[in-house]
């Protein structure tokens, strides 16, 4: 059943590289947008709060496939990206595609950051302020590091979701794993074996991502959470 792999594995390797690339860019943009919108959401100004809420509501309320297509068709009308080929797809698809993924992920990331900040007891802020520290130092020196540590698992889940969601980019012609599997299926006149291969690839990628996140959790100081005997 998987004899075709012998011949077609380079296609899957290329697709995997592409999936990793778009996921990586998407994650970076997602974190950036998340930080940006969590600030808006916590801002004193109603208008900013409102913008952030609207963005989050729209992203969470519509399928990512539709978002990706709308952003791609929308962006391609607005900006002109050179059609340089990279790993088998044009940059004019890769870039809007990754941006779309990032815009989608940003809404979830913003909510995760927000929950992280909420999770840190008010007492931590008060302890910082009562020592004479500024609001800024208290936020970035005391609250944030703890918040980031707390939300790492949730962030990890979001990254995993993003890796999986990246499969919708096949519809705008990005040659990632799903697109490659569908293409090979077209040549073989049979979909099932290449789709199984794609499923395994995603599974491995997402497992690696959770491994990575749990390593980071350890590095970011599991120590202080452990209660020694």
């Amino acid at each position: 059943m998987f004899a075709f792999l012998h011949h077609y594995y380079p296609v899957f390797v290329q697709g995997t590289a592409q999936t990793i690339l778009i996921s990586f860019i998407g994650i970076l943009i997602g974190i950036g947008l998340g930080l940006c919108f969590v600030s808006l959401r916590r801002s004193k100004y109603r208008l900013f709060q409102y913008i952030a809420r609207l963005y989050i509501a729209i992203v969470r309320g519509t399928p990512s496939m539709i978002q990706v297509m709308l952003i791609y068709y929308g962006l391609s009308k607005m900006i002109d990206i050179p059609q340089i080929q990279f790993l088998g797809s044009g940059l004019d698809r890769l870039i809007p595609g990754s941006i779309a993924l990032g815009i989608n992920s940003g809404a979830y990331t913003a909510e995760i950051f927000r929950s992280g900040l909420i999770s840190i007891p008010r007492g931590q802020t008060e302890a910082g302020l009562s020592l004479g520290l500024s609001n800024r130092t208290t936020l970035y020196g005391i609250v944030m590091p703890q918040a980031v540590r707390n939300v790492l698992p949730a962030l990890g889940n979001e990254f995993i979701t993003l890796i999986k969601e990246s499969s919708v980019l096949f519809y705008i012609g990005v040659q990632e794993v799903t697109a490659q599997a569908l293409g090979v299926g077209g040549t073989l006149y049979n979909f099932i074996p290449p789709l199984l291969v794609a499923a395994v690839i995603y599974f491995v990628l997402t497992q690696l991502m959770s491994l990575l996140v749990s390593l980071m959790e350890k590095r970011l100081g599991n120590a202080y959470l452990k209660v020694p005997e």
Partner: protein
Amino acid sequence: SSNKADNSVKTIQNKKTLVVGTAADYAPFEFPIVQNGQKKIVGYDLLLSKKIADNLGVKLKIVNTEFPSLISELQDKKIDLILAGMVSTPQRKKAVAFSKSYYTVKNVLLVNKKNQARYNTVASLKGHSVGAQQSTTQETITKSQLADANPVVESNLTSLTTELKQGKLAGVVVENAIADNYVKSYPHDYAIAKVKLTTPKSFRYINIAARKNDKALVKRVNTEITKLQKNGQLKELFKQAQALQAENK
């Protein structure tokens, strides 16, 4: 319609590349294979594209995406030409300019080999699911000529034929070239049904699509097609594509 000078050929020659859009899940017209460890999209349309690019003296670049979105990509100037086994329907003619035809199709009903005897007539399909690719002439034909059947529309042809093999569909309406190829590749799985489907004239011709204003480009393309038709190379290219698929499946 505009009197402005048509720069379409010059633009392509200036950027030294012809960008052709296709949807590579349609063997033998276009499909991916691996050659020397590299993925490559090949097929009849690609061989022809190469000839056109050569004629223009430029490199060829292929953009592979979903069939239903090709025309919109053309209009967004993401691609210069569509070579995707695209039939020049009157409706599409409203949106794009078509070249001369480089292939003539007839539509047939591809069925599971087991059911070859079962589906002989249009009536025998009553109440059964028949597949067709979304936004294709086959979709229109299915819905008009097999009105008693249940149409199933998906964006990808292979997903339909996979379902056919699984017994989820009674038949799939496809072009005869594709159907022949399926039968040749998997004689135990697929067969062509005796059901009579008529392909109206406006649904018969496969052409290359270009933007409406790119008249000069269409002209150049037509010249090349005529040449290849005359010296018999067009048929050769098709056979070459069929052979390529046979050795890669």
